[in-house]
């Protein structure tokens, strides 16, 4: 009942509702996918398949998820006409323009949050896994919580 009340009054906490319910199930392990710095300082994660997930999920699906995340972060940090235009416009307005509109990076971060929520609902939750958005870990790792096998259902 607490969770229902929480979700009614705090719709912005809905992204945690899956996590809240998952808290009921015991956590078996946590897997951390580290950053891949071979292309420099841009945000990319390693696509190496962790051994702890071998019994839970298909390697290809995991790699697809990570690759999609990498492409989304690359889109956020892309240097191109659009980002230069945004930068110049912001400079000319002494950066006051960001009081009314959000940056391109923030828009892509929202896209990433939706993508992770979607992946959790469709692929990871049915297998007893939970992806944590990297922004909540300071873009250091993709944390995957592995729950014990008995926990059921996507649970909403």
């Amino acid at each position: 009942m607490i969770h229902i009340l929480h979700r009614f009054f705090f719709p912005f906490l809905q992204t945690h509702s899956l996590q809240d319910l998952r808290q009921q199930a015991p956590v078996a392990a946590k897997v951390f996918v580290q950053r891949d710095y071979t292309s420099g300082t841009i945000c990319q994660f390693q696509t190496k398949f962790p051994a702890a997930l071998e019994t839970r999920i298909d390697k290809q699906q995991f790699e697809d998820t990570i690759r999609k995340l990498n492409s989304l972060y690359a889109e956020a940090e892309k240097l191109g006409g659009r980002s230069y235009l945004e930068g110049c416009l912001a400079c000319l307005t002494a950066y006051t323009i960001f009081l009314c509109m959000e940056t391109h990076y923030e828009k892509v971060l929202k896209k990433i949050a939706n993508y992770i929520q979607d992946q959790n609902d469709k692929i990871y939750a049915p297998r007893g896994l939970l992806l944590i958005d990297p922004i909540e870990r300071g873009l250091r790792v993709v944390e995957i919580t592995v729950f014990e096998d008995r926990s059921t259902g996507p649970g909403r």
Partner: protein
Amino acid sequence: QYFLLVNQFSIQAATVPKIPAALNRGLMDPGMTECQYSQISTVASSPMESQLGKKIPKRKWQTFPGRNKFYCNGRIMMGRQTGVFYLTLVLIVVTSGLFFAFDCPFLAYSLSPAIPAIGAFLFLFVMGMLLRASFSDPGVLPRATPDEAAHLEYGINSPGSGGCRSPPRTQEVVINGQTVKLKYCFTCKIFRPPRASHCSLCDNCVERFDHHCPWVGNCVGKRNYRYFYLFILSLSFLTIFIFAFVITHIVLRSNQTGFLSALKDSPLLNHSDTVLEVVVCFFSMWSIVGLSGFHTYLIGSNQTTNEDIKGLWSSKRGKGNYNPYSYSSVITNCCAALCGPLPPSLIDRRGFIQPDTPQTLCFGNSLVSLRADCDEADDLLFFFFLLHPSLLPVSLASWPFSHDSCLPLCVPHSRSCSHLSTPSALVLESSL
């Protein structure tokens, strides 16, 4: 009206409105002896938020482990020592104020009204950039959660190691053909990303760390480097502008009345403002213009101050040593530094602490590991003061300050473990 069960939060009894006794008894679970209820209205959302702001547990900035100051309920973030920042503000505001008050009327009348207009624009731009550089998050990396730290410490990267061992101090990675060493930060319990460094004054790892600037009162890193650069560039223009037009003013007035009488006409006290402006502008001009030139070079070659003083990418280190982060052309480097996408703050200062999220623990740090952080900061501070030759008397006076800031770090355990119980960041809540 609806009632919200918030038994896991501590609520001030005074703020809880009176609840009908019958309802209270009905809803109160005998097992939960510390239930409190808060009455909330569903009509308007903003009163709800502000009411909850008082009752819901702390925002993340209140338990931030670094040595930073936060103002305006987490919106503003600065380094710990802000005295020199106020000096910067006073110098700029007073000098510009004197210029507008005493020189502009004459110049607007005898030359052009565009002069005060341009001066005003420059002044506002300088202040805007200074405040932006001082108040924003420089790119602080949040510390590792206990699970992450444990994962690194148990050395899962090398299978078969088993058991507990401390993580290796460095990790090597090849970036665009260059081998780069990633250091392990014992304070933050993470492997620092490339170009990141730990600032011992703020006790944080900062991405693309440039230097800690006392004049700005904050670190200069990935997120506020462009504001810092635009600040020093526009301040150079403002200083030269004021200096040039004050000299012009004196020259024009002396043409009218004769040079010595221009100064002698009224007692020197009346012209002390002019003298003050000339002195301040003349001495600060050299260091600020020099600093702008130096940072223009850094931007063009896509290096940080930190990398440049260490000579990491210089060809003197060996043949084939080049900067792996530099783009193909100087223009691209400049555009990337100044007009690139603005990364978000990773520390989420104004977020509320969820009771189930892992809190970063403070770990006792060994004496040996802390000394490594101290040495790095010493190099940086020395370089900073080197860049400001006109401020050498000031820098010599404050040199002991840098050592004092290092010494507390070299005390193991007791100091660093005070973070959770009493936040080391000074907290000033403004009324919003």
